[in-house]
């Protein structure tokens, strides 16, 4: 799907994407890609149990926002949240360790793949009930507004989320209270196993609903990290200054199935191949070369990213499984689980 004709032109002046930012965007995308691929490999080796929802093909969105966000901004994401959590700087060994159920996991093995959280990095949780985190992100934005901190909450979700009530409740609420929250719909064309257009009243499940809440229709190329980055900067800065929320629909494509259990056989022939031509990482690499980045520089980034993933894998593999002592810990603030005396 060609989204370039649908893209809204950014208001002048154009936001510059500097050389350092481009390096960072490429580095991030590489790390997210390699780490997700590693997660898949570890599944095949039976080192990761449970389920897993990979962001392969969607890395430009996590990277574009991750680079644009301030350290004290907040990310709220879904069960497809490995990339968004890593993009805030969460430990890769912590992410892989959590997927593998190890003590070094971000959540000590208590949360698993679908609940990655690193509060210290502003990754305020991965939420596995569709729609639930849009109101929660709204609440964090309320807290920023109340305290006057100019922090922004960014909330990522899929196209399927636009048909659940919490999406609409949160949008209305955020607009009425003029809250600094950016809602980012990653439209990967499929609601789990079902083509989104077959179950949605409008062509653009998020952007075509924006006008119902007095918001601008924003559709961007979610496979173009520059486009994501400049859009992120523009709307986050507006929100920081009291300009209220935004709803952004980023067009993208999932290279793999919905989850570990899904071979994605429902996709029409040729669709994946077409989108592989628009692979965000290949697109970005070509752009960097066109812009004069040296091949050796890119190779270095690629080698370093792979080394980081290898190191994180080894750290996670070496970590012990959690002690059974943690089972009845941290239900309550006192560290325990007692409900009676």
């Amino acid at each position, binding site marked *: 799907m060609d989204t370039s004709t649908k893209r809204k032109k950014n208001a002048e002046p154009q936001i510059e994407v500097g050389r350092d930012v481009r390096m960072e965007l490429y580095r991030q995308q590489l790390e997210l890609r390699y780490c997700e691929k590693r997660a898949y490999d570890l599944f095949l080796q039976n080192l990761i149990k449970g389920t897993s929802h990979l962001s392969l093909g969607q890395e430009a969105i996590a990277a574009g926002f991750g680079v644009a966000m301030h350290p004290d901004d*907040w990310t*709220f994401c879904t069960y497809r949240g490995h990339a968004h959590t890593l993009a805030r700087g969460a430990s890769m060994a912590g992410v892989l360790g959590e997927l593998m159920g190890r003590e070094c996991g*971000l*959540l*000590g093995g*208590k*949360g698993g793949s679908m*609940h990655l*959280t*690193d*509060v*210290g990095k502003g990754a*305020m*949780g991965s*939420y596995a*009930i569709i*729609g*639930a*985190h*849009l*109101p*929660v*992100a*709204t*609440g*964090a*934005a*309320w*807290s*920023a507004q*109340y*305290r006057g901190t100019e922090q922004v*909450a960014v909330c990522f979700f899929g196209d399927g989320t636009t048909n659940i*009530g*919490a999406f609409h*409740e*949160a949008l*209305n*609420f955020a607009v*009425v*209270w003029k809250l600094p929250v950016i809602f980012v719909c990653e439209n990967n064309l499929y609601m789990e196993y079902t083509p989104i257009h077959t179950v949605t009243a409008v062509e653009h499940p998020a952007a075509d609903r924006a006008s119902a809440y007095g918001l601008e229709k924003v559709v961007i190329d979610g496979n173009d990290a520059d486009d994501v980055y400049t859009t992120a900067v523009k709307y986050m800065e507006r929100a920081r200054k009291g300009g209220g929320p935004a709803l952004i629909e980023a067009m993208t494509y999932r290279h793999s199935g919905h989850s570990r259990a899904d071979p994605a056989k429902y996709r029409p022939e040729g669709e994946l191949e077409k989108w592989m031509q628009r692979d965000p990482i290949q697109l970005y690499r070509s752009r960097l070369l066109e812009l004069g980045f040296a091949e050796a520089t890119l190779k270095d980034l690629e080698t370093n990213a792979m080394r980081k993933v290898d190191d994180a894998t080894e750290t996670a593999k070496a970590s012990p499984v959690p002690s059974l002592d*943690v089972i009845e*810990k*941290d*239900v*309550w*603030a006192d*560290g325990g*689980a*007692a*409900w*009676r*005396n």
Partner: protein
Amino acid sequence: MAELTYRDAVAAGIAQEMARDERVVFLGEDIAAAGGVFKATVGLLEQFGPKRVRDTPISEQAILGAAMGAAMTGLRPIAEIMFSDFLAVCWDLVANEIAKMRYMTNGQIALPLVIRTANGSGSRFGAQHSQAVENWAMAIPGIKVVAPAFPADVKGLLAAAVRDPDPVLFFEQKSLYSLKGEVPDGEHVEELGKARVLREGKDCTIVALALMVHRALEAAEILEKEHGISCTVVDPRSLVPLDTQTILREVEKTGRLVTVEENPRLCGWGAEIASIVADECFWSLDGPIVRITTPHIPLPAADQLEDATVPSVERIVREIRERID
């Protein structure tokens, strides 16, 4: 000591905490300009202003989500869900998000928030505005559950709930709103998880909650005067944390346990208490444990039907006479 109504004690408790701590904010439907549909929050908007006391749309998921997001980022919100029945439309936020977040994140996220809600029968509103749902909440690990019976407890336990580092579901029994009672002057804070023994007897220990406390006390009076049955009445005040030590001690003294529950029968809170008592002081019991509950039906609306459904003073007296004599 000042005499306050149960409804005024709600506003007094919120005001006490908002005056003390700027992080305390309050949101809900019709709670600000209108002062609440039960008039339990009158005056708070005027006292604390629209930045801290905010009306919301009819969006229960957004209300609890906003409270959760605010709590995890440093505020101490109080959210009102107008009727406890409406918790069902935002139960995901209660049961899946708020209650689980600390545990799932290995202690990274704290949620010091309070969800206040009007619970229970007495207003003839029918099955979607009058049911007692405290047992729903008790079934969820990770959320505290409080249900006061007296104005002083409303203020003191609400203050405790606001100060508590964990999420609290605070059930106000809506037909108690006009009840008057003495409330201590000045700052008043109670402790969650402390039952109160309201009356001491020799023959039977009644454990009752919220509205049922008043009916149990009246029944105990009649049983003593007219039938020579002397009853202890215990008000747990909070179901989570649950003061089982007080309950066990009082059951050991009388040898009998009767629970009086407004919630429908199955998995009512009394079933858990009955199980604990059977398990831990079985040999002190002189007879079977008796549960007096609303039958396992949706609550009917008409005066006579509602009155005949929820445990009444007469029914408590009758059942205790039949089962204890």
